[in-house]
């Protein structure tokens, strides 16, 4: 069995149009889910009456049900409902908005748990010290607690992001044409699905690696206070970097 390389080149050329679509879905989902995830995490950590149950319910429902079932509701049932209210304009909505909704809902659920775990790694004394220099709890949270929590949150946000990047291909069910969708459509004429998937894989490798580097740099930035004083040896590329810094852990 040999690979049809001409076809792979052709798929590579067309599928690149799907890259912005994939990135859009992921970015929109992350940007919206980030603050809401933090808020929900705080609601759970501080056991805010009433809301805490609601958040727990939301997380278990969204996280616990297959995305395909959610798509069914958002993409199929919701526009039909809208049709009854605003008429046929409901059908003119670009399906990518439905994709935004579905993936944002999912990202919120995941990030809520990510932040919940990360925020609890920060020592209580940090909040107290902030209060005692006169800062509001809110100010202390943004300036002191969150930056420290991010160190432990970032690897998990990276996990969530990579998961989103890959899962955004499910948006094709809603006729949104991301990388996978375009490649599959190309392959439909000659059944060269194997080649199409290989091209898709390369694209995902590139995108995911770029995302990893971004997250790695962020993690390094936020954990700089844990390292002993040392001249940095320039840019350190994870994962192919040879020398990683030994992290000094916080004292407590």
């Amino acid at each position: 069995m040999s690979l049809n390389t001409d076809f792979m080149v052709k798929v590579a050329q067309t599928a690149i149009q799907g890259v912005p679509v994939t990135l859009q879905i992921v970015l929109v989902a992350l940007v919206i889910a980030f603050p809401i995830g933090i808020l929900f995490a705080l609601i759970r950590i501080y056991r805010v009456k009433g809301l805490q149950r609601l958040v727990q319910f939301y997380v278990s429902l969204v996280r616990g049900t297959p995305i395909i079932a959610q798509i069914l509701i958002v993409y199929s049932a919701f526009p039909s409902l809208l049709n009854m209210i605003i008429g046929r304009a409901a059908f003119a909505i670009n399906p990518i908005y439905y994709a935004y909704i579905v993936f944002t809902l999912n990202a919120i659920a995941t990030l809520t748990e990510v932040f919940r775990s990360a925020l609890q790694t920060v020592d209580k004394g940090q909040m107290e010290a902030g209060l005692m220099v006169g800062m509001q709890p809110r100010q202390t949270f943004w300036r002191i607690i969150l930056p420290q929590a991010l160190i432990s949150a970032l690897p998990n946000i990276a996990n969530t992001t990579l998961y989103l990047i890959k899962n955004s291909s499910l948006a094709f069910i809603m006729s949104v044409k991301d990388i996978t969708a375009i490649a599959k459509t190309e392959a439909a004429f000659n059944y060269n699905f194997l080649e199409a998937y290989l091209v898709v894989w390369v694209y995902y490798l590139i995108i995911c690696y770029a995302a990893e580097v971004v997250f790695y740099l962020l993690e390094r930035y936020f954990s700089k206070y844990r390292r002993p004083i040392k001249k940095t040896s320039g840019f350190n590329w994870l994962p192919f970097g040879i020398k990683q810094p030994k992290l000094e852990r916080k004292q407590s």
Partner: protein
Amino acid sequence: MENIKLIINFLGQLLPAINITLIVSVSSIILGSLLGLLLAAARLSESVVLRVLASVYVSVVRATPAIIMIFVVYYGMPMLFNDWFHTNIDGWNRMYFVIIALTVLFSAPVSEIMRSAYESIAKGQMEAGLMVGMTPFQTLYRIILPQAFVVALPNFANSVINLLKEGALTFTIGVVDMVAKAQMIVANNSGGYAWQTYCALALIYWVISLAIDKGVSQVEKSYQAKRKTIAV
């Protein structure tokens, strides 16, 4: 009313397939966690070679969509075995391939979860362990891991639930778990009763995920007294 009857009927058809879902998920969670632990250890180790290997593995696996992973395992592994060991594993139960693919997929994010949890534990804990004469491994196992475990738990639950829902992957090579069964029920009804079927499916998954959440909360609650977090 009619719908509820249908959903109950579909529940009855789906539930037998929970066996496959559980066998596949539980084995890949166990195997994947062990592999993830090794990977996290490698990434934190002193050896440059181990660190680079582990991070390349994690990068590649995390970037690989499930459907590609299953094809790589299902088609690639038999070829490898044929060429290198001259054994034919083509005839293996297809479930093995699914478990292997899921194990690999699961191990990468889990290694990151473990790494970040490990690094959130104060260094002094390890030092104190060493200074009462425990070996690094004993300290890791008895002191660090229990503390890191609580930190990792919510993220671990995220990954486990994601894994449970990877039914599309098992079905790609024809292993019928609950998701696959749901698709087949819909197909055999000529595409009808789809939302009732998926509703039944979502219900089952929801119950499982509720159970997992409950477990997580329970463990966290029992641990709350032992740490000073920003929580009240």
